[in-house]
């Protein structure tokens, strides 16, 4: 019985260990020469701007050296105060995936749903699925980015991508 209880406690500890903010120490991004992080950022990284949101990179799609789109209101406010052109969108139609690749009920973020490179703004899904389609298009046009969108697909947050 004692062994059984110990096993349950171990399982619970493991389960509850897998949660914010222990999953965000590397979730930082860079806009121009400014590194954006949070109080949870790993000590090996020295952010120039601190925001409340630990899922910092998830919440930011960098669109130029001094601009971005964000799904977090505090990030928008802090970045604007630092002279960065941040467009805030309250987007509800970005999805996360369960382990088997089916859609989760959890909401995803714009940084994770995009990859920006070589003046391309790649959206993982169809821009027409997003409530803030017009605002996003206006913003990326302002910065000379080409939209790459995939017709008919729901928009998924894959955690973006890192060019290594």
């Amino acid at each position, binding site marked *: 019985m004692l062994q059984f209880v110990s096993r349950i406690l171990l399982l619970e500890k493991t389960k509850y260990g897998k949660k914010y903010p222990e999953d965000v120490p590397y979730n930082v991004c860079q806009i121009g020469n400014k590194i954006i992080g949070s109080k949870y950022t790993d000590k090996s990284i020295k952010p120039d701007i601190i925001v409340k949101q630990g899922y910092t990179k998830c919440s930011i799609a960098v669109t130029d050296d001094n601009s971005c789109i964000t799904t977090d209101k505090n990030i928008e406010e802090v970045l604007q105060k630092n002279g960065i052109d941040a467009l805030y969108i309250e987007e509800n139609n970005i999805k996360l995936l369960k382990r088997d690749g089916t859609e989760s009920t959890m909401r995803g973020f714009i940084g994770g749903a995009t990859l920006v490179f070589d003046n391309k703004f790649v959206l993982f899904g169809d821009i027409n699925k997003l409530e803030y389609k017009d605002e996003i298009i206006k913003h990326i046009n302002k910065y000379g980015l080409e939209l790459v969108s995939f017709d008919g697909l729901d928009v*998924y947050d894959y*955690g973006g991508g890192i060019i290594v």
Partner: protein
Amino acid sequence: MRRLLIDERIRDVEQIYLKQYFDIIKIPLSNEVYDEISGHSDIFYCKVNNQIIEAPNAPIRFSNSIIGENKVR
């Protein structure tokens, strides 16, 4: 060709597009974080000043990266 680190759950049509520009490295799903973020590059890695920094428990290790202090869980 540049290499792109991305969640293994990426759909075929997206992968075909990105293959024009990158060698795709798919991140296997980790058991150390919750399922939705278990293949997310931005959970295990970041890139600042052109330097890759990776979690000590990142699913794929890179020889030219800096290893951070904290595991992600």
